[in-house]
């Protein structure tokens, strides 16, 4: 299982990458592996507001529907639209090409409450 050290994580298996003034969000290697083949991704539109811990979209695999939960609150400033046409990218490259949205955080303090890689890896180990 690959969990990059420079990312932050949620207990719902999203990752967050802080770059400049935005937070890029996707799902972890563990999440994509558990889901199986991803066949559909439903994402918000640029300009939508998202709230930490609340659903901002849906990822569906051949067998399951899973909600996507925002790691931080804020405004959606970018959406990875190509994912809608090529949802399998989430399986193939969850941390790079498979990113989902970028959020302009409204409360930077929320970032500090995300898990670091050690805490997330331990959390995953508990689930397995």
């Amino acid at each position: 299982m690959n969990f990059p050290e420079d990312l932050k994580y949620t207990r719902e298996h999203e990752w967050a990458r802080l770059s400049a003034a935005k937070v890029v969000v996707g799902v972890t290697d563990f999440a994509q592996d558990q889901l199986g083949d991803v066949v559909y991704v439903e994402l918000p539109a640029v300009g939508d507001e998202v709230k930490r811990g609340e659903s901002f979209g849906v990822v569906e695999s051949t067998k399951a529907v899973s909600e996507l939960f925002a790691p931080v609150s804020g405004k959606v400033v970018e959406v990875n639209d190509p994912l809608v046409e090529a949802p399998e990218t989430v399986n193939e490259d969850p941390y790079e090409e498979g990113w989902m949205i970028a959020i302009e955080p409204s409360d930077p303090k929320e970032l500090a409450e995300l898990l670091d890689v050690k805490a997330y890896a331990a959390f995953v180990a508990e689930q397995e």
Partner: protein
Amino acid sequence: MALRTPLYDAHVRAGARLVEFAGWEMPVQYAGLLAEHAAVRTQVGLFDVSHMGEVVFRGPRALAALQAVFTNDLSTVADGQAQYGCLCRESGGIVDDVVVYRRGAEDLLVCVNAGNRQKDFEWLSDHAAGADVRNESDEWAQLALQGPLAAALLQRLCDVNLAQVKTYRFAPGTVAGRACLVARTGYTGEDGFELFCRPDDATPLWDALLEAGRPEQLQPCGLGCRDSLRLEMAYRLYGSDMDDETTPLEAGLAWVVKLDKGEFVGRQALRRQREAGLSRKLVGFQLSQPGIARHGYPVVQDGRAIGTVTSGTRSPSLGTSIGLAYLPPALAAEGSTFAVDVRGRPVAATVVKTPFYTRSSR
């Protein structure tokens, strides 16, 4: 605790992801659902279907007793031939959909759904006057080898001339030295075989097939692709698309209901239903907007709930979202449009002809 098939250790060894299904701990996937689905459509895949049950009718009353509880007509079936049909309650509701293998007039094997093993056995015992009915589910394991290359691969290991075992026929023989009932049946829409064997022979047989199937890149397959394969063919799944409350006529299985064959349990109710007309019908549909319709999602038209999705997935072969739903008959014609309520969002759908997938779709 969940039940396990004789192949459980083989699945774990092969790195399968296991899930609970109908009370069984079964592999849902090995390499991944899409890869396994593609293998069965274009090459060949191997399934463990040992969770399916076997109820056997024996004795001089066997054929008559089974005829009296089966919607299809076994008098048209020869020894060595199999037939699909339903067991129905007096009300016409479906107890199970099954395949009957006629080994002889006094020896018929009924292959039943995993979740219905006990229910079917009790129901059959109660209704099969005079026949010797046995639940042999624990005495059989079952492998399904499915795909266009299945026959060529199996022939190398098998002492039965498979050219003579046509679709829905079977013959006793050996595969890799293990005694099997070699049946040209399956639930994927591809050519293929189901091998009924002794539980102790299941793992050696599984291993021998995987070893022999290397040239064909034989792929072990899980329940995940079994579901997407059967749905592309619009084959019904008991418990999802039909149950004790739905009749074969509603489920689109009129072709296995032979009302003129003589008396059988449920015949009167089915005849009345046919005369009165259906109030709902299971149809195939395709979504014309992004999304996936899943079991239980409401079907809506003009803001009113008018039916329910019973199965739905994204078709790996076709690249579209497909499903089955119960609709009022007035809306069941090909080309009718409606919406599926996908978690609060109406998604446009059209009734289409089934099967969704045909071999010419390749």
